[in-house]
């Protein structure tokens, strides 16, 4: 009954999302090597510009292709994708990604997400505490404060964009044993504040707009990541309504209420700009020396 087709030499799953999508899962589990391999495959697919491939959506440990089945049979597309996967092979040492490292202020344990999360305890794994307390406990931290420190200690890589326009899925650039992992809510909330900082699975996100959501709520970002009218210069100058791009490196920097309010005032005045620097990211160099690579990226950002 399922349309799953296994590729011969790996565990990659190729499947059909109805008549217009092909879904490719390189691994059920998230890891940086898997993500970088999916990145290499989707880049190659884009370069090949195959007729009938309407859109390529890279994601964490998988990717999705929207296909026009009237021009390209989804089964033929799967054959092309399998060919590309075998040609790309394992992660190449000389793969580098032109990216930016961005300073993103964040207020953790903020009043706005706290108010909302308390309204939805009946949909949460632990109705008695807060999302931060729960995250600290199941990840083995002694205190909520120590957990908060870990969340902001190392930069994150944007490994997927979507949900709603501009939302970045961010995977922390630390070895597996230091990664935070939490479940999504048992049932999604019907409400999430605009610019909420959430966490689900092994991913941090900022919600661009208010709306439904299933991630644990840990904080709030003062600066927008979606600007539908391109009012702020970061958006107007790039002629885009979204700020982040797939492959960006984000350094979440803890701010207090005063700095939060100061950024909000700059946003209201239309003068807010993100601070960021361009750099070349080398996945293989990062995997060999995560902390050293993070330190040098922060050095580029903060001087």
């Amino acid at each position: 009954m399922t349309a799953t087709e296994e590729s011969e030499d790996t565990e990659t799953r190729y499947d059909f999302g109805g008549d217009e999508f092909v879904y490719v899962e390189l691994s059920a589990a998230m890891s940086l090597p898997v993500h970088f391999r999916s990145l290499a495959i989707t880049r190659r697919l884009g370069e090949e510009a195959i007729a009938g491939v309407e859109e390529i959506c890279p994601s964490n440990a998988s990717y999705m292709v929207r296909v026009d089945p009237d021009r390209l049979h989804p089964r033929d597309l799967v054959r092309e994708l399998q060919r590309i996967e075998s040609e790309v092979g394992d992660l190449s040492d000389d793969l580098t990604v032109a990216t930016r490292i961005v300073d993103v202020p964040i207020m953790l344990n903020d009043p706005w997400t706290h108010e909302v999360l308390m309204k939805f305890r009946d949909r949460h794994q632990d109705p008695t505490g807060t999302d931060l307390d729960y995250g600290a406990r199941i990840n083995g931290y002694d205190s909520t404060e120590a957990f908060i420190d870990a969340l902001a200690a190392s930069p994150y890589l944007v490994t997927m964009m979507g949900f709603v326009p501009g939302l970045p899925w961010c995977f922390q650039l630390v070895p597996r044993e230091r990664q935070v992992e939490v479940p999504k809510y048992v049932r999604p909330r019907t409400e999430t504040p605009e610019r909420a900082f959430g966490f689900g699975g092994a991913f941090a996100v900022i919600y661009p707009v208010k709306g439904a959501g299933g991630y644990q709520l840990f904080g709030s970002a003062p600066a927008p990541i979606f600007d539908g009218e391109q009012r702020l210069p970061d958006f107007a100058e790039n002629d885009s309504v979204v700020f982040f791009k797939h492959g960006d490196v984000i350094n979440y920097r803890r701010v207090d209420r005063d700095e939060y309010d100061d950024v909000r005032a700059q946003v209201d005045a239309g003068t807010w700009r993100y601070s960021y620097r361009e750099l070349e990211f080398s996945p293989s160099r990062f995997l060999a020396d995560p902390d050293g690579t993070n330190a040098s990226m922060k050095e580029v950002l903060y001087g």
Partner: protein
Amino acid sequence: MSVIVKDPGLETTVQDTGRLGYYSIGFPPSGALDSFAYHVGNALVGNEPGAAALEAVYLGPTLEFTQDTVIAVTGAEIPAFIDGEEIPIWESVAVSSGSVLSFGQLRAGARPYVAVAGGIDVPLYYGSRSTYTLVGIGGFEGRALRAGDELAIGSEARDPRAGRRVDPGDVPEHPATAEVHLLVGLHSYRLTPESLERFTGTDWKVTPDANRVGYRFRGAELEFVPREQPFGAGSDPANVTDCGYPVGSVQVPGGVEPIVLLQDAVTGGGYATLGTVVSVDRAKLAQTKTGDKVRFVPVDLDGALAVRQERLAALDRIRSALA
């Protein structure tokens, strides 16, 4: 040269074929939910295929036209009136400057469409005139219509003509239980085989939580296969490592309320999906309302493509007959 909204109805929006090409940064396609009714409406009034039209839900809007033009009502089965006199639906009708279009009570279906010769002329936003209210972009000021809004009508009608009529045999029916085709897959292996069978064997009831973002259903409980969760997914059995969601995919957070994602849905997330409704069948879902029943009929890829071809061929045939 415009349409004045006297009464907006419940949630009436400007829609076209949708905003394609930005899925990878999180823009859902938006666009008319019942693409069949939308396309036939444009063909009736002699528009180019992508012209923007109005999509209403449950309650039709009251609209005044400030020019002589040609309109057509398609989609849900609903009495429509020009200046109080009933007009046929699925048929193009001439209206005079100052005329008012109004609607009676919905008889069947959920979403009426109003096509106007020349199309509704709102600015293009990322290549489309479709309204996406979740973030407030596209359409008329990024929102559903309100009383007093004045919508411009485009001037590029190809061949506006009253009296074009869809063959009654081509007008979709609104059966008590809608049947939509489902290509099972994606993360369907997360559900027990009994639950998957229960999913396709159940007449699901549309809950009040049913809109352009998605439809939630009730009718049975589904169980996940116990497993040690892969890293990155989160510990809940309904969780998977976050991935893209095809438009039309079905997820079951908590196992109790399956959700079918529609044109304004989120583009990705971390709940297990059990399959995808065939694209042309989203039009059928769009005409179901709270309390209606829906049954998901499993098909394989070849079956899904056959359903698609059949529906698109019917649309082509109807368009040719109306040209």
